[in-house]
């Protein structure tokens, strides 16, 4: 990363009520929150089915699994690295879980397998990046093919089915009333990651590593270890997402979660995390998760096909980043 100034956007204290419009626009989270509220209002006008507790509860499935990974990915991207292999880790973890299930083990063993596989995959990425000093984008493009490839070797075009009923609780169960188990996991993780990133020394180290790895090293931060931990975390979260997704779908195919890595990265970037590292907040990622969930759900209610929704997500990604830049360009002109 050359001389890129990073902390110009996205880290302002949210006190926008008395500030002029341009300042409000400059705070990423508040802009995003406005977008989220706007989409929410539009949706409730567009479809009479939108403002229904059960429908909204269903809608959370659109983002909970992706958001779990996005939290860890946010930290990783803030630290200046990226992991494009997360969706493939899901495929491999899910395949491993299927094999354990076929071998006759129960729910705890299946879930543990998913988590451990994720952790191992993350560790593999981390080792290649930190020990061999390889660029993470190339490493994870490689492992993206490798992990899913292993899943294809094991499963081919077949599928694992017949997970035990007790396993289905994670992805299909409700904690209380309309609140799903997955949503509770999502909310807990949001708090945990917010505390880690914004309230601990480790969180400060993550920012330091992302802003200037050399300076971080000289100020006594073990850069390689921080990155290794973040890769492990991302792997673990992918494993967790694999547990949730497999439990929700009730089956495993090699093509499971394909293309999800891009949605996760979109979520993180939409959340105001600088793709070049050094800045971003968990709050932003949480709002971005809701924005993406609401867009997909609202469009779904209007019978818009999934592929057209992806146009909106793509436009949202570019638009939300381009608009503030266009704004400041026009103001300067």
């Amino acid at each position, binding site marked *: 990363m*050359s*001389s890129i100034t990073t902390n110009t956007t996205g880290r302002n204290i949210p006190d926008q009520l008395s500030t002029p419009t341009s300042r409000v626009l400059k705070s990423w989270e508040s802009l995003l929150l406005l977008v989220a509220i706007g989409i929410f209002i539009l949706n409730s006008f567009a479809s009479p089915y939108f403002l229904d507790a059960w429908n909204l509860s269903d809608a959370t499935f659109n983002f909970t699994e992706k958001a779990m990974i996005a939290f860890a990915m946010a930290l990783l991207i803030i630290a200046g690295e990226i992991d494009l292999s997360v969706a493939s880790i899901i495929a491999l973890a899910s395949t491993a879980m299927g094999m354990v299930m076929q071998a006759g083990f129960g729910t705890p063993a299946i879930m543990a397998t998913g988590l451990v596989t994720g952790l191992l995959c993350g560790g593999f990425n981390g080792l*290649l990046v930190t020990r*061999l*000093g*390889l*660029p993470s*984008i*190339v*490493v994870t*493009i*490689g*492992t*993206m*093919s*490798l*992990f*899913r*490839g*292993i899943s*294809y*070797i094991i499963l*081919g*075009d077949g599928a694992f089915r017949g997970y035990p009923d007790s396993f289905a609780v994670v992805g299909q169960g409700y904690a209380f009333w309309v609140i799903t188990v997955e949503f509770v996991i999502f909310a807990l993780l949001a708090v945990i990651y917010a505390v880690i990133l914004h309230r601990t020394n480790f969180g400060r180290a993550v920012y330091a590593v992302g802003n200037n790895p050399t300076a971080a090293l000289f100020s006594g931060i073990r850069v390689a270890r921080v990155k290794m931990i973040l890769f492990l975390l991302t792997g673990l979260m992918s494993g967790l997402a694999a547990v949730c997704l497999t439990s929700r779908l009730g089956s495993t195919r*090699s093509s499971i979660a*394909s293309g999800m890595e*891009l949605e996760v*990265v*979109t979520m993180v*970037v939409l959340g105001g995390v600088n*793709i*070049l590292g050094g800045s971003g907040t968990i709050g932003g990622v949480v709002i971005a998760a809701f924005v993406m969930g609401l867009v997909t759900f609202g469009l779904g209610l209007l019978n818009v*096909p999934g*592929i*057209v929704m*992806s*146009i909106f*997500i*793509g*436009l949202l*990604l*570019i638009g939300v*980043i*381009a608009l503030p*830049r*266009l704004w400041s*360009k026009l103001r300067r002109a």
Partner: protein
Amino acid sequence: MTMLKARETILTCAILLLLGLIATRFPAFVAPANLLAVFNDTSPLIILALGQMVVILTRCIDLSVAANLALTGMVCAMLNVAYPGLPVAVILIVALACGAVMGAVNGLLVWKLAIPPIVVTLGTMTIYRGIIFLLSDGAWINSHEMSPAFTGFPRMQIYGLPVLGWLAILVIAGMALIMTRTPMGRSFYATGNNPHAAVYTGIDVGRAQFLAFVISGTLAGLAGYLWISRYAVAYVDIAGGFELDVVAACVIGGVSIAGGVGTVFGTILGALFLGVIKNALPVVDISPFWQLAISGAAILVAVTFNSRSGRSRGRVILKSAEKAT
């Protein structure tokens, strides 16, 4: 330079070794006619990888190439269905223009708004794919709807090699010329090696990146028509995920993801390496399901190897690249 040459020599040796291994059991695979067929089959990958190489050289990445290919292909196919009499030359021009426009959109967003290329192309990748759906309504265009001239063009044999292969050779020659013999080609290397120094030597870094995206887009457009007419089918998900193969070909071919390092020859070798594996798997009776894992492992081995061989030249890739040029 010797280092760069060594990398390409080693890659050549790896490909020859691979061919040799296959030949011990299946001599027919290394027959000239079959090798030509392998080259022909790898042509779209070569064309796309050369475009991607230019983009990566300028410290960017273009993840939208496969979506660009699919959208251009769909436009060409729909044009052919609507006006079956349209000559192939016109279709080719439309394909090049269509691809160039999509590349220019990427390039403008990177140049004028300074949005990180990975974000831009992630976004446009999904947008371009979505547009295909809007255009086609999700329907497939099959071979019987296309005119014989449209589908026949890339298969036309000239001196034993189909037009598809000849076009790849043409692109290789053109790109080699641009990269080594023109100020524009050198400006791509300068931009990637040291953007600040490039500015002081009078190179508009943003413009160079824009041009790189236009080149990548144009080549993707060309590959789009060739792909659709060769397989005689056009649909939304065609060539899905192919952008990763393209990046993989570049990485295996020794193009540094940090920019500034990479050659046309290396990139071709990277693409051929993947092409030989893809074509050899069914021959040596390994399930095609192995292909993904093998190309993933190949990327990891290649990038590890590249960083090992480059290590002695300094800790930062940027510095080593400066010395090399």
